[in-house]
């Protein structure tokens, strides 16, 4: 640590996305929900393109399609028209409305517009639920947008009542494969869980006989309402702000909130599994104990390939923390950890999960872009880079492997199916990293061994 971050005015090749994009993704993980951006048409289209390129799935994001006169006189009428049109064509259960920099700056009062809309349409049949979240793109990144949408839904839709014994799980923004795996884990403990959001099916759907306007899956709205009656909440994200979904549920309904890091690596996964054992009163099921055992075995088998290798890690802050927790266990040395996010908690969170494993803490910088990462990278002599697709130019320049994780994966297929979480996800990352380092050694060797 201690190295000074280059301090530039301009941003080049940002390592973050804008806030409304995160909100759209979170809404996409709620059943029967159409994300809706209150702004000009381009935002919705750009985000769709960006998201499709990762998931290879349709994602319909509606827009108020504001034009100049709306920017002057207010976007209310177009918002209401848009909601009616979406309701008519998609017949959604819910519309998740996120604002944009345009509508935040012209001062549109979306809550008031929605109140008027509900009043005007009272008694109409089949109208969807409406939730809204403020996502000015000039404050925070897509992660604030993602968590903001989750919080907005919790604040606006959950209801109290007698405890049902369910457990709320707020995983944050992870891959479709991760959401699937988390359900499997919870099922393994026979825990009745409400996972919010759930992008396992909505953004990684099967080929079907009939085209569905809104893909199946996502957290059912009735289950979201019932979150206020759960007995506990588990949320992932060491760098998340204080007013998280779990905190709101605790405050509103007095539900115990357990905040963990993303379960990556053995120790962070152990914390998750131990908590589930405690909450369920059952031992960790054999299938996961088996996975843990094989993971430790794999760490041992591959440790020499990884020990002392220097890694640059970037991406969303909580993902970076999880990756550090995992990599430090394998002997890889994170030398630079960077994020476009600005939680103020990144360095402390990394230290908390790696402190006793690393001889020296890495440089940790928030608010970084790829130009700054590249500036620092050269002299750090890294052996590998771990992050999403946008680090490829750097990996190519340095001639070292890029281990693709997180979002977006725009230069490979199957980004939504990368598994990061639990012993199983860690196992897959470990094998991928070990093999990338072996492949590099093999390719660089003048001999051409087929036996490494």
């Amino acid at each position, binding site marked *: 640590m201690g190295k000074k971050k280059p301090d*530039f*005015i*301009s*941003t*080049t*090749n*940002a390592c*973050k996305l*804008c806030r*409304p*994009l995160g909100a759209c993704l979170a809404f996409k993980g709620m059943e029967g929900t159409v994300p*809706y951006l209150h*702004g*000009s*048409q*381009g*935002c*919705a*289209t*750009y*985000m769709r*393109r*960006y998201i*499709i390129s990762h998931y*290879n*799935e*349709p*994602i*319909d994001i*509606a*827009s108020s*399609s*504001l*034009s*100049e006169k709306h*920017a002057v006189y207010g976007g209310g009428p177009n*918002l209401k*028209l*848009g*909601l*009616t*049109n*979406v309701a008519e*064509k998609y017949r959604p259960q819910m519309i998740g409305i996120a604002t*944009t*920099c*345009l509508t935040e*700056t*012209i001062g549109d009062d979306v809550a008031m517009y929605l109140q008027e809309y509900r009043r005007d349409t009272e008694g109409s049949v089949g109208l969807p639920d409406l939730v809204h979240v403020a996502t*000015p*793109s*000039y404050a925070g990144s897509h992660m604030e947008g993602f968590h903001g949408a989750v919080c907005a839904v919790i604040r606006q839709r959950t209801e109290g009542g007698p405890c049902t014994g369910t457990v709320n799980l707020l995983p944050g923004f992870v891959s479709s494969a991760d959401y699937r795996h988390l359900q499997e884990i919870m099922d393994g403990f026979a825990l009745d869980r409400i996972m919010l959001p759930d992008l396992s099916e909505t953004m990684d759907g099967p*080929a*079907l*006989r*009939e*085209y569905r306007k809104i893909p199946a899956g996502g957290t059912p709205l009735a289950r979201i309402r019932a979150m206020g009656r759960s007995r506990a909440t588990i949320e992932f994200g060491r760098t998340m702000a204080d007013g998280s979904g779990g905190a709101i549920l605790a405050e509103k309904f007095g539900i115990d909130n357990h905040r963990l890091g993303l379960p990556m690596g053995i120790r962070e996964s152990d914390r998750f599994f131990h908590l589930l054992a405690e909450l369920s009163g059952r031992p960790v099921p054999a299938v996961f104990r088996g996975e843990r055992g094989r993971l430790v075995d794999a760490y041992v088998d591959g440790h020499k390939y990884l020990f002392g290798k220097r890694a640059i890690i970037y991406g969303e802050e909580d993902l970076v923390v999880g990756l550090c927790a995992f990599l430090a266990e394998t002997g890889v040395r994170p030398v630079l950890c960077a994020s*476009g996010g600005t939680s103020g908690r990144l360095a402390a969170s990394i230290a908390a999960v790696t402190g006793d494993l690393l001889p020296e803490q890495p440089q940790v910088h928030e608010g970084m872009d790829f*130009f700054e990462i590249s500036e620092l990278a050269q002299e750090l002599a890294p052996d590998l880079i771990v992050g999403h697709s*946008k680090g490829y130019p750097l990996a190519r320049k340095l001639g070292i492997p890029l281990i693709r994780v997180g979002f977006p994966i725009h230069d490979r297929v199957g980004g939504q199916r990368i598994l990061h979480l639990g012993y199983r996800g860690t196992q897959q990352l470990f094998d991928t990293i070990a093999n990338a380092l072996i492949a590099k050694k093999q390719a660089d060797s003048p001999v051409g061994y087929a036996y490494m």
Partner: protein
Amino acid sequence: MEAIALPDRQNHIHRKGEQPFAIRCNADSLAGAVSQRACVFCGSRVVLYPIADALHLVHGPIGCAVYTWDIRGALSSGPALHRLSFSTDLQEMDVIFGGEKKLRRALLELIDRHGPRAAFVYSTCIVGIIGDDLDAVCRRVEEETGIPVIPVKSEGFKGNKRAGYQAACDAMARLIGTGATGDISRFSLNILGDFNLAGEIWMIRDYYREMGLEVVANITGDGRVDAIRRAHGAALNVVQCSGSTMQLADMMEERYSIPSLRVSYFGIEDMSEALYDIARFFMNKYPDDPEARAIMERTRELVRREVEGLLPKLEKYRQALSGKKAAIYVGGSFKAFSLVKAFRLVDMEVVLVGSQTGTAEDYAELAAITDPGTIIVDDANPLELTSFLKEKGVDVFVGGVKERPIAYKLGIGFCDHNHERKEALAGFAGMLNFAREVYSSVMSPVWRFVPGRADAASL
């Protein structure tokens, strides 16, 4: 049965033969319709993007810059500044107190770092609202750095994508006329509206070189600021993608008396016609000049050689694809004309054709060249496209990234003809690539497992 389109969308759809031709278009997208269109900023950004030695600074919050980072397959033979994504990344305080100071400092920093030949500064939605004086900042930085610093008036909400094309043309108009033109040949042209996706403009330039023509400026594929500055010295503007750059050609005709030709480089027919039109233009301009006749001779030879080489190779694809049905939904309608003809060349039937930004004239032309029953649609959306594709039993859909999952979820083949693609589809060789790409999607065995298909295997 539920209507396919919302009531306000119905007059954007024309079914040829069922009623006299009429279509509503070039209008603001309908709220809540989930248009496939982007915005004014997008229009400007795609046109100027390939100018490789210019700085492209997006003034606004981070989204607009980061979603357009390295998204076009526009190649450069030299500098590649266009592939970086520069932003002022406006924050809350900038929005409250104004972003001018940050913009100026960002410009100075980036110009000092990269030494570009010019800088384009793109307005985004928010800049239009907070009232930053872009002109003043650009003027000042221009004085300080000595390079052209040009504001692009591309606030997202100020119209649709076409307004962005206009803003891009206005920006380029400020460069044109500022370079020396003394040594330019009489037999010269500018290439407008080719963006050098997958190296296409290099192919086209090779044709012109073989014909004996000098290319003054690429506007904008593999574009260079200094070349654009002297574009007014060319004898002719050859305009492809007329929606995006025709305004610039019109301006140059008015200001510098440079005539223009509308062409398309897609498909054998249009590619050949483009080269002949240009050769004829110089024959007419210099009727007694032996060089003009020689250009025509060389053009004939070139077209003959290319077509003779190509047709036998296309035969395999034509036989396999004959009778299959195609649907087209693209950004600009110029591409749609060529695609209709290109599909005809491989004996395929076009049953749906639409675009984001076509004009009434464009759609009238499409109606004229397509078969009865063809659906023509303006500014469509996923649900309309899905309905049309199902209704028509389409085998292959041509579009961009946003159209791809629609096709795939319906179990339909897909060909990417958008600006992200990495395959050259222009020129004579491009026609072969196009046929191969359509073939490799339509003929894939994977469709036999897709449940939506009648012939699919099931569990």
